């Protein structure tokens, strides 16, 4: 009961945050120089000034900014209740609702984010645990160096170097896209070959993070009394590691999952750009450049909502997994 109230209150608090974000994004994206109508009619020589004015009027771009914002809010959040569908939340370039366009690309981004998450867990967690148990060894030193350098690599540079080495020189993996053109979309091996490099590049910082985190956490756990008791009982080393130390060290990792997924989805922007992965980030970036305001709004609001929700889920997960943390 108390926790239900807590969740409701957190969700309620999220509303002003998201409103402020939408106002900020709306104002900033429209302050930028450039006019979408001029951009997409570029090169049309038979266009008169009147045509341009008419087009601007059609999209509501001639209205004062607050009116435009209200129009967008009513259209995007309240689905045009009590009036015919407005163009305010429709893509200027595609003439379709921006949310729908974004939704079509969401699957691709989620694929990438989940694959990266999987790599982070499969590589980062064992690395950290091994480093902790072999503290001071060569493996430990390697993991610690890796944990710092994984953060220091510019993402796009790593991506481009991998393309250069793996795709261009060794010809092992494809360098862009979801799957080979002409292949069946359920050709899973082909899709895996395509997703491997972008997922790894997206995962690298997280792998570094996890290995470092797990190392500290495991070191803390194995210095506690119940581990000594387990050893004293004569349990095998493996049993101690797997069912005593590992399970306890994993608690913070599990609670952080939601937040990490949100970070991956928004962090995918650059990776998507490098590997021409048709996802939400790349789409939003293209919209910023072409001044397709409704898509910019949809993209930023989507990513922000995901982030806000993941903060809430993280806090709830903390209090569920570790009852010592009060939900206050």
């Amino acid at each position, binding site marked *: 009961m108390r926790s239900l109230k807590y969740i409701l209150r957190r969700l309620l608090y999220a509303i002003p*945050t998201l409103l402020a974000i939408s106002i*900020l994004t709306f104002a900033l994206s429209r302050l930028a120089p450039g006019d979408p109508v001029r951009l997409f009619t570029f090169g049309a020589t038979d266009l008169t000034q009147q045509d341009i004015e008419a087009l601007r009027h059609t999209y509501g771009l001639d209205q004062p900014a607050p009116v435009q914002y209200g129009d967008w809010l009513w259209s995007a959040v309240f689905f045009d209740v009590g009036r015919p569908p407005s163009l305010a939340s429709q893509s200027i370039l595609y003439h379709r609702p921006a949310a729908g366009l974004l939704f079509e690309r969401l699957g691709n981004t989620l694929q990438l984010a989940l694959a990266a998450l999987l790599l982070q867990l499969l590589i980062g967690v064992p690395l950290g645990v091994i480093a902790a148990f072999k503290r001071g060894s060569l493996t430990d030193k390697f993991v610690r160096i890796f944990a710092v350098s994984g*953060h220091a690599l510019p993402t796009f*540079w790593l991506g*481009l170097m991998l393309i250069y080495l793996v795709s261009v020189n060794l010809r092992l993996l494809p360098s862009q896209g979801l799957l080979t053109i002409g292949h069946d979309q359920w050709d899973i091996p082909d899709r895996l070959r395509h997703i491997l490099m972008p997922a790894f590049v997206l995962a690298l910082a997280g792998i570094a993070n996890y290995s470092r985190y797990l190392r500290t956490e495991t070191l803390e756990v194995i210095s506690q009394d119940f581990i000594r008791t387990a050893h004293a009982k004569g349990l095998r080393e493996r049993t101690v590691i797997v069912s005593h130390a590992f399970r306890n060290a994993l608690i913070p990792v599990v609670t952080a999952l939601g937040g990490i997924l949100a*970070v991956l989805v928004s962090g995918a*922007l*650059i990776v998507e750009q490098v590997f021409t992965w048709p996802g939400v980030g790349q789409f939003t970036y293209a919209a910023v450049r072409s001044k397709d305001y409704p898509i910019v709004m949809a993209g*930023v609001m989507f990513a922000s909502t995901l*982030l806000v929700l993941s903060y809430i889920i993280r806090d709830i997960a903390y209090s569920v997994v570790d009852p010592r943390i009060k939900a206050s």
Partner: protein
Amino acid sequence: MTATAEVTLERREVVPLRRTAAGLWSDAWYRLRRDRVTMAALAVIVLLILVSLAAPIFEELVFRYKFDQQDLLHAYNPPTLDPIYYIFGADEIGRSQAVRLLYGGRVSLGVGFAAASLQLTIGVGLGLAAGYLRGRIDELVIFVITVLNSIPQIFLLLIVASLFAPGPLPLIGIISVLGWTQITNFVRGQTLSLREREFITAAKTVGATTPRVLFRHLLPNVMPLIIVLAAIDVGTIMLLEAALSFLGLGIQPPIPSWGNMLTNATQYFFRGGHLVVTPGFLIFMTVLCLYLVGDGLRDALDPRLKTH
């Protein structure tokens, strides 16, 4: 009692005792000097800064080649010692990669350090004020932080960066105005716990004014944390600069920065692969060293936090 003491002693690294007691800073410096990795990283950073600052000297005396001097006949020249100015090769219009890296370093390091110091000024100021004064100011600061932290940073930077003509100064402004939240959070948290301590009450009791309490009593206590954050911050900003360059929103040529040199070079991947390697490696090295220094400083300044 003795048994416990022995156990803890055993686990600690053995640091020889010093003859005289020392303050926080000289104590930290003593520990830092023994940390070879951190000292090496610090040396690399100092060297990079000095070499970048001396760019005109290298240009005139060592390479004898202007940073914007072109030589189309030697475009994409691979790295060679003869002539010396092509030691890192030539770019797509025959400019010396080495000299341009020196000047790029000035811009990249400059943006990193300038934006970080601005961020720190904003972050520390707001953090101290919010944490010490509480009330309305605190609520406002927290709300702004919540809003800024709830927008994925790269999206926000993307939109704001397209507002300005991309140059070093607007970039410094954008990065610092959007990136102070983490520092503020840290400083605010520290201030919240420090303000309840006896020495603050004592200072207030003897009639210290609010600015005096803030700057003479609170600030010195959060200083160690600030220095650690600063080192890491500079590195993160340099990565951001590179990422924004890649998205076409960073500093624009002809001003060279490591970020835009790297981005530019990726267009000539097949003819001049060497051009991609050097700027990327320099960014990586610098950021790595900054992170290592940050880690080392944290251990040196607060031995209790030592992460083994």
